[in-house]
């Protein structure tokens, strides 16, 4: 029984860690690019902030998946669920879509946002265009999140 719980928690941890790594790298890439632009033109802080913040969503998706796991296991208080070993594996695997899509799409969205930052440096009026481009990358993290939520929802635990 304890192993089941441990595996489930590992799943939630994976979602946060991998999503967080993806976002951290992504935001880092965009942030470096924007500091370069701001050294020339400090006025652009506001519009660049948007592009830098955009790859941050993957980390949030991982976080909220993990939170769903926490709620499912009753770790916040109340009665603690006791998943079987198989259910533990199921929860772990259910967390993988958001974890891996978050990791990879976060990094690549960061790259798109970084080049978007350069674009905004030259064409300040076209801010929304790189934002949309970045959203195209994020789609896959959103789909990963969707499947993780549906899978977690489908796993029934007896408390």
């Amino acid at each position, binding site marked *: 029984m304890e192993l089941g719980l441990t595996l489930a928690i590992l799943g939630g941890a994976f979602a946060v860690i991998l999503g967080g790594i993806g976002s951290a790298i992504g935001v880092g890439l965009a942030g470096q690019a924007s500091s370069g632009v701001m050294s020339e033109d400090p006025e652009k802080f506001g519009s660049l902030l948007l592009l830098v913040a955009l790859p941050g969503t993957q980390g949030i998706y991982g976080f909220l998946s993990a939170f*769903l796991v926490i709620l499912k296991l009753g770790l916040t208080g109340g009665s603690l669920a006791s998943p079987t070993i198989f259910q533990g594996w199921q929860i772990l695997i259910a967390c993988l879509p958001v974890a891996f899509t978050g990791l990879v799409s976060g990094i690549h969205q960061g790259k798109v946002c970084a080049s978007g930052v350069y674009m905004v440096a030259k064409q300040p009026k076209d801010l929304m265009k790189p934002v949309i481009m970045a959203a195209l990358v994020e789609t896959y993290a959103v789909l990963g999140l969707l499947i993780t939520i549906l899978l977690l929802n489908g796993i029934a635990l007896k408390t």
Partner: protein
Amino acid sequence: MALAEVQKVQILAYSGMKMELLSLLQEEGFIQIESANFEELGLKNSLPEVSHIDLLLHRLSHAIDYLSRWEEKGFVKKLFGQKLQLPRQEREKELGFDYKPLLDMIEKLEADKNDVLSHIKFLEKEKEFLRPLEGLDLPVKSVKPTEATEILLGSLPLSRLEEFQKLIDEKALWHQVIWRKKRKVYILLIFLKSDKTSFEQVLKELNFNPLYLTEPILNRANEQDRVEHIIEKIGKEIEKMREKIEVLEGEEQRSSVHREKLMLIYDVLLNEREKLLSSRLLGKTERVFYLEGWICSSDIKKLKSKLLPYSEFIEIYFRLPHPDEDPPVILENPKAGKPFEIITKLYGLPHRRSFDPTIALAPFFFLFVGLTVSEAGYGLLVTLFSLLYIKLAKPKGGLLQFLKLLSILGISTIILGTLVGGWFGFPIRRLMVLDPLQDPLSFLILCLALGFIQVWFGTLLRMISQIKNRDYLQAIFVQGGWLILLPSLVLYGVIKQSLWGIISLVGAAGIVFFASPSRNPLARFFGGLYRLYDISRYLADILSYTRLLALGLATSVIAMVVNTLCKSALGIPWFGWLFAAMIFVGGHLFNLGISFLGGFVHSMRLQFVEFFSKFFESGGKPFTPFELESKYVEFI
């Protein structure tokens, strides 16, 4: 869904009134002036010089920037501040004000201040240089060689002091340590001139660094003045300079009352410059000038009435654009649809052949943002804030439309948030029709259904535009085929009646036989069959709408997380409520930001990638009328 009709306007008028007429057109902003076809019409053009205005504009903006530090500042004032206003007819009066002496004065103030500042810097460096020598109790003027002796000031690294001491003892020299610092000693040395060369060599090896009193320092000294007196004198001088700067700044502050005047003049001059630049586009003969441009048909009447007083000197012609001409595009929408034009414009204006998709996308966009944010409380905040901002700051143009769009989307979020979400993470069960957390599958089907409707509608719009362009075969058989095939296939899959299967085959037949343009029947058949493969694209497009569920859930779950954290924070003794309140406000504001950003961007993507790809053709040029421009001022 139509584009506004644009007509070509041609004006011939007496050249004496060229500038007056241009001013009028600039005020009204009806016409986009195009370059006249000089060669074909055998006209000359003129190239008035604008560089003198450029120079003035540069000086003005520099002065305005320079005085900006005296402007009253405040966060609220900055956020809700309104621009200066200037009646457009009276703008040229502003140039009657003789601003050039003012400009000269401000520039002189700046130059003077810079002079004084650099002088202060110089004095401070001297003071810094003298500081270590303060303990020298000789008059400065007496520090000079005599017939037989040499006198030397300098510093020595502390680590070499022992060696130096040895040297001194050996040669029995007179020296005095003036000041001892952490790593350095300052020393006064007196030695015989005859020893000079050999001695200097030894000192060099000891890293002795000689210091020489400079000309300005010596000039400042009286016969009896020692270093400390000179430092005092320099300090007094710096004080005096600082007072001078205060006087200069006072003058600056007084002249900053003219800053607004300079702003007015800047904008008026800016428009004079634009006027001169536009006049380059006009053709001219000896007595007459010729102007050509585009005008929105609905403005023609107004233009005519404005030009009525000049009718004796003017000839105006209007005509529809020729097929080979490429007129600019103006979107025309009812008031409620206008804010949604932002989305269309972002993708690109429609081509003249296509049509304005704004009204078609508006209801979908409205719904999608509501579903992706699905948090009624956030909707309420956004609507309230944008309405408040519109009321207080009275923004114009693009910003106003954007705020209107935000307030409309906020309303959508209030409605849909109540139905499928909650208020700040607390669902109101009585009003909810569907809880995506409890029943995600129903919500998923809802999203797919919405996607199906939009994709189908997009195909219908393509059919309509093909009919408009007289491409009947494609419109009826291919697009019509898809329009039949898609819903009947879904119905067949759901209720499994063979009737719907047959109907879907009819639709597919239309695509197979008419989709390929080839004349060879076999190639045509297989080409058409291949086009049937597009069904996978339709499938992918519709599946893409599942993001509505994921984003909606993300908002609700984060809101829930914030509330759970608040609840835990309340458990902290004494300050629990404070932490809870901070987490509640901060967390929900954060969630509001990311969920609106995500909702906006992803809903937009659904329009651009899934919807527009079905029918929309962009590539129109925007209509940019010749009108008053402004940087600081608002023309009323």
